[in-house]
């Protein structure tokens, strides 16, 4: 187990480093253009701002030296946004709890709905209830969360004012306000995932309930509840758990980008979307790297949890 964790974390570090190099090359080596033009405020910049940028990011040095300098800046918290956010590192750390609340809540709703509805499907397999839930799941999967978020916000928040229009209240300050600010974003983000999860869990459980050892367990007189919980669910949930792990880590660079913008939640997605819109290079590269670290770490943690649940995955070669 320890060697698995070490291998997995090593791979995470390599991936995050690769991401930082790609982001750097992508944005720093714009062909035919002096990076000091973009770093010095693009068309709004003057010769002074450009000279300042050249000095700050060492733009007259060779590229590897510039890379090292930028990375130091990103991790020391020296990188600022031109327009709004101030020090990027502290802005990112302030924004992280919002996004974790959003992703965590949406994940719980999606997985809870996925498992419970799939269990209903399996119990009533082939009957109308099974078909009805499957149809609903297909429809839910086909409504992109950007549409749900936009329509929820436009009608329930903006037009009819049932829910707060924007903003975020920390959980410690006021749990009820925290909940009402996050409820719509949670549902909007979770429904399409829940639709996919019902189908994935149902298919996986159906593969399991027909297994020989389930029949044996039933034959030896195990009651149905215990059978489902101890035998079917524990094995049938292994493929879905892998999906959840990937989706959970991807969420930090996925739906949070637009869900937070639409609902005005000041999380990392909001920060990223705003920065991307300004073409402000150092914070864009910085955010790409911060987010890459969050995504890579989240997926490493999930993989370790999955390996702890299913020892077969600890063998070498399955680390990804």
């Amino acid at each position, binding site marked *: 187990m320890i060697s698995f964790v070490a291998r997995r974390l090593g*791979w995470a570090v390599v991936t995050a480093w690769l991401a930082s190099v790609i982001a750097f090359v992508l944005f720093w080596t714009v062909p035919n253009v002096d990076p000091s033009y973009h770093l010095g405020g693009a068309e709004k910049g003057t010769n002074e701002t450009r000279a300042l940028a050249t000095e700050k990011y060492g733009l007259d040095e060779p590229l590897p030296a510039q890379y090292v300098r930028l990375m130091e800046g990103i991790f020391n918290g020296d990188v600022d946004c031109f327009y709004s956010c101030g020090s990027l590192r502290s802005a990112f750390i302030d924004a992280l709890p919002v996004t974790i609340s959003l992703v965590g809540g949406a994940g719980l709703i999606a997985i809870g709905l996925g498992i419970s509805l799939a269990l209903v499907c399996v119990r009533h397999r082939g009957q109308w209830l099974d078909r009805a839930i499957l149809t609903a799941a297909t429809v839910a999967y086909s409504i992109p969360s950007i549409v749900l978020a936009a329509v929820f916000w436009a009608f329930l928040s903006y037009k009819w004012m049932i829910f707060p229009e924007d903003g975020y209240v920390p959980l410690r300050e006021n749990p009820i306000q925290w909940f009402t600010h996050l409820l719509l974003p949670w549902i909007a983000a979770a429904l399409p995932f829940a639709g996919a999860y019902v189908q994935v869990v149902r298919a996986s459980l159906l593969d399991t309930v027909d297994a020989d050892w389930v029949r044996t367990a039933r034959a030896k007189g195990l009651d149905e509840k215990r059978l489902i919980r101890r035998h079917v669910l524990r094995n049938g949930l292994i493929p879905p758990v892998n999906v959840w792990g990937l989706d959970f880590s991807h969420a930090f660079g996925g739906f949070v980008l*637009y869900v937070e913008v639409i609902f005005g939640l000041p999380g990392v997605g909001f920060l990223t979307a705003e920065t991307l819109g300004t073409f402000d290079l150092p914070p864009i590269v910085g955010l790409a790297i911060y987010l890459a670290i969050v995504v890579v770490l989240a997926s490493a943690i999930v993989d370790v949890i999955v390996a702890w649940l299913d020892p077969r995955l600890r063998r070498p070669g399955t680390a990804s």
Partner: protein
Amino acid sequence: MVGRSSAEASVQRLPPARAAKRAPGPWRLALKGFRSDRTAVAFAVLFVLLCAAALAAPLYAEHVAHTTPAANHITERTTIDGKPTDIVSVDGIPIGPTWQSEFFLGADENGRDLMVRILYGARASLQIGFAALLITLTIAIPLALAAGYFRGRTDAVISRLFDVIWSFPALLLGAMLGTAINLRGADIGPIEIKGGTKLIPILVIGLVYIPYIARPLRGQVLALREQRFVEAARALGVRPIRMMASELLPHLWPSILVLSMLLLANAVVLETALSYLGAGVNPPEPSFGTLIADGIENVRISTHLLLAPCVALVLFVLSMSGLAEGLRRALDPHRKLGVDLLRGR
């Protein structure tokens, strides 16, 4: 096994008496299964109708709505129930759905015909989706074949490459790439990729989804290469390239078809999110993303600007996912593609 390879064919040629009574091929069986699946056929019909409507956008604009997606009618009037009505009222509120040939779904804040814009937007999104799919397939299929067939070091390099792309959320990667190319495109003198050109989202979406196709295919190739017919072909002296193209690839087509349909739906959704974030299609050009962004921005003026493109997008995505599921039931009855094919997007 679906598909028929030359080695199998040459084995079957041996007893000539059998040739007359050939069993229906796997594709024919799949077609039969698909046809008897009423849900799948309904989704296929819906998909074809929607695609036809999107492709006919210029015809609709010219002959029915008598306008273009970019033409402003902000100061003009139209006739509703015989009464002339301002297209955009004095306080800036555009007319809602008229259910007539002109301004069928109403106008937007600039007095542009919303139905025409949605049809053009759907066409743009479909073009982007199909073109991106083409890029993904042309890169992913050879890589998957090479990784699965050669194994060893080739596989290690290619699979690690997939893992790196796979580790990053498609939307974040796409938004970063889209922003970078937009930035670069604006400045490369003679080969200028203009902002708003569809090439940017096509390239971005096409590259981002490579591992989504390549990983499951590689798994199938790994299993296929252990089968007897591959051994037989190798014994006959078939070279690797030929082996991949004419022995292994035919067995992959059913999976490729199912995956492509799923990916097309994902690509359309990703385009929407990218364009909403300003890293896809750029504003005056209609696409699902720009139309929805426009609708959110102008929701205080009129809600039909948001609802109409949202409903259109959901119809498109629903038809694609429904069709993908139907294709899977017909082509992949034993779930070789794994139960975990659907994931969040």
